[in-house]
């Protein structure tokens, strides 16, 4: 079926009281950005508590739906049929014709819903529903009415300019429009978890920046490119991501030579947090985001997380996959299409910086004592910050 209009439903943001128009405006903005990348002419407009998308020119309907399915804040995408008002009898015929096209001979239950903004229409909403229901039952014996839990709704909206009809609901991603929640700094590695974490937080309305620590020659140029690719995949949802690429080799070698090897990972992660927080604050990010999940590896036990967390001065650290099993994270990664890239084998090829038996229950005092031996690390952190490379990923047509 061909549609030229879509009605966009956004239940969660509708309840945000006085901020409602801010949310709606942001959602419209994000939808326009998403559609601007496609071929075709698109109009996104707000009208009496609804957002509509009108499509013109040469466009691919599936592309439009897929683009909208990546705009956080959208709950349902409803393909819309616009009818001229040629009387109720004509309306009945058009509705039945449309339902036959949608559902054919399938045994299903339905319920008619109607709304009337044009108050001079000869029938009230309460009169339209039973009359329309009756006509549908008569024409389509495979359908039954169920007013409590129907398989589908038949929505009829009598408006000033035309009558809107819709029944199919395509799920959107949910969440809130990117930008309403400010900005977060994602610690992005080449793994499976961090892109998922970034996606989840962005879904709550946050723009993203990201930081990646690379360690040439111990990690390769291809590993770095993989991280850029992952950022690009996440940016299809979150919008453009500023990626800060920090050279971590000097610091890593220094820790390696100075500190006990079973504490390498934890000290390294604390320094990564410190650097990430600095970059976050310099760039107006109000939180850090990591892909940590309890117990997944030695550095992610509750004790390790506590010690890592203590390296952060003041920003909250969000760990949206904290309670997920690996398999649950993988499911999301597959859904957002980062999985295939995440499992490319470039990352962490060189395991020399991972101790064979890292501490699993580190004590902050002990770790801090080890860190006091790193007298020169402050200068190295400054240098790493200064020499970082910044690239903007995604967002281009």
């Amino acid at each position, binding site marked *: 079926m061909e549609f030229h209009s879509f009605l966009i439903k956004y239940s969660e943001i509708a309840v945000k009281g006085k901020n409602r128009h801010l949310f709606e405006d942001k959602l419209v903005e994000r939808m326009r950005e998403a559609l601007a990348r496609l071929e075709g002419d698109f109009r996104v407009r707000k009208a009496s508590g609804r957002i509509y998308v009108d499509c013109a020119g040469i466009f691919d309907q599936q592309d439009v739906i897929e683009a909208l399915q990546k705009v956080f804040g959208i709950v349902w995408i409803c393909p819309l049929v616009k009818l001229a008002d040629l009387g109720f009898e004509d309306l009945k015929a058009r509705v039945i014709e449309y339902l036959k096209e949608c559902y054919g001979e399938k045994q299903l239950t339905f319920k008619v819903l109607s709304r009337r903004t044009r108050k001079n229409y000869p029938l009230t909403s309460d009169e339209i529903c039973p009359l329309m229901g009756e006509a549908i039952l008569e024409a389509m014996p495979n359908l039954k009415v169920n007013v409590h839990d129907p398989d589908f709704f038949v929505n009829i909206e009598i408006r000033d300019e035309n009558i809107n009809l819709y029944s199919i609901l395509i799920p959107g991603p949910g969440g809130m429009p990117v930008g309403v929640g400010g900005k977060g700094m994602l610690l992005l590695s080449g793994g499976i978890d961090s892109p998922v974490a970034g996606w989840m937080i962005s879904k709550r309305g946050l723009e993203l920046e990201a930081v990646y620590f690379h360690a*040439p*020659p*111990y*990690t*390769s*140029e291809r590993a770095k490119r993989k991280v850029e690719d992952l950022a690009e995949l996440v940016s299809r949802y979150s919008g453009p991501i500023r990626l800060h690429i920090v050279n971590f080799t000097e610091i890593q*070698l220094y820790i*390696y*030579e100075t500190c006990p*090897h079973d504490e390498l990972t934890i000290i390294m992660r604390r320094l990564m947090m410190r650097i990430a927080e600095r970059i976050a604050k310099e760039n107006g990010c109000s939180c850090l985001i990591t892909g940590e999940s309890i117990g997944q590896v030695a550095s992610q036990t509750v004790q390790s997380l506590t010690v890592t967390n203590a390296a952060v001065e003041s920003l909250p650290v969000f760990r949206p996959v904290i309670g997920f099993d690996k398999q649950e994270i993988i499911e999301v990664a597959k859904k957002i299409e980062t999985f295939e890239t995440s499992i490319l*084998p470039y990352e*962490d*090829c*060189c*395991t*020399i*910086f991972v101790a*064979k038996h890292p501490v699993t229950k580190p004590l902050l005092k002990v770790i801090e004592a080890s860190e006091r031996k790193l007298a020169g690390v402050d200068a190295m952190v400054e240098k790493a910050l200064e020499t970082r490379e910044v690239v903007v990923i995604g967002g281009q047509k």
Partner: protein
Amino acid sequence: MEIYLDNSATTPVLPSVKEAMSQMFDMEYGNPSSMHLKGVAAEEKVLEAAKKIAATLGAKEKEILFTSGGTEGNNLAIIGAARAKMRAGKHIITTSIEHASVHNVMEHLEAYGWEVTYLPVDHQGRVAPEDVLDALRPDTVLVSVMMVNNEIGAREPVEEIGRALKDVAPQVLFHVDAIQGYGKYRIRPGRCGIDLMTVSGHKIHGPKGVGFLYIRDKVKIDPILFGGGQQNGLRSGTLNTPGIVGLGLAAEEICRDLEVHTEQMYRLKERLTEGLKALDGVTVNGPAPREGAPQIVSASFEGLRSEVLLHALEEEQIYVSAGSACGSAHPEDNRTLYAIGLRGEKLVSTLRFSLSIYTTEEEIDRTLEVLRAKLPLLRRFVRR
């Protein structure tokens, strides 16, 4: 200064080759299969290239079949021979150190009912001709042995094997993967019992995406590509005329001064080998310099992951290749290194340096100097 020591992966194109190809794109863009003059002109260029190549082999031009490169050449030779000889038998003999474009074809055939014998090699990577003869069975239809191993430069005794096969089992076809050997050694396949021989253009300073398969006159193999019937139906597909012209010229030029080039490479190989041996904790793998191919040096660096060293050299614009993928010591990652007896640490700490006619003494010295400086630094950070 950029130092390219990965010439067994690919080589830069000769300027004359680039020029000749450019001419083809500009002027002789016709399809050699076309009936008109534009097609005939292109066909002549292809014939000329075939003649040039045939001349380097003491062969006839009709014995040269153009392909898209080494992988296709090996696939066509092996699958084509196996299918053509199906009724005579389904046993094939090869070595355990062949390139993936031979080895994986063998595994494919095994899945379809062929039996394959993989012969071992000695610590220098050489297969013994007696082993080949001992492995012969009444149903053996094909023997495939590479001329030069791509990982360690071992030179296989293909001439000896070929002659012996023609004596004791003339019905068996003999294929040689000469991708790393052609242009480094003079070879006359017709005189030493080689029926099929694969060559790739971009390993001899020719273009990528083109190569040839030598098929001895009267030897019949089945095609693996079907279509318009080009090249006597054995390899359908419009001829890659610019590539073929480039390949022909590269073959001619490289073979013209072959001894001069290889002598220069041998001297540099010796210099590099001596320099590497003088470094702490470095072992050079494979045969003695002049017993192997002139362009390949394989070395293991104790206590280091090859990939780390590769990227460390890359920082100085020195490009080499890693013997085995880092992180895993799986024997399948590098069959050759495993077959010559490398295990564990040595398997994952191996680099391949490969030279070309453009390699200079300064480049070798600079590479050794960088290694001398970097090895102790990198070794400070070894997993304990």
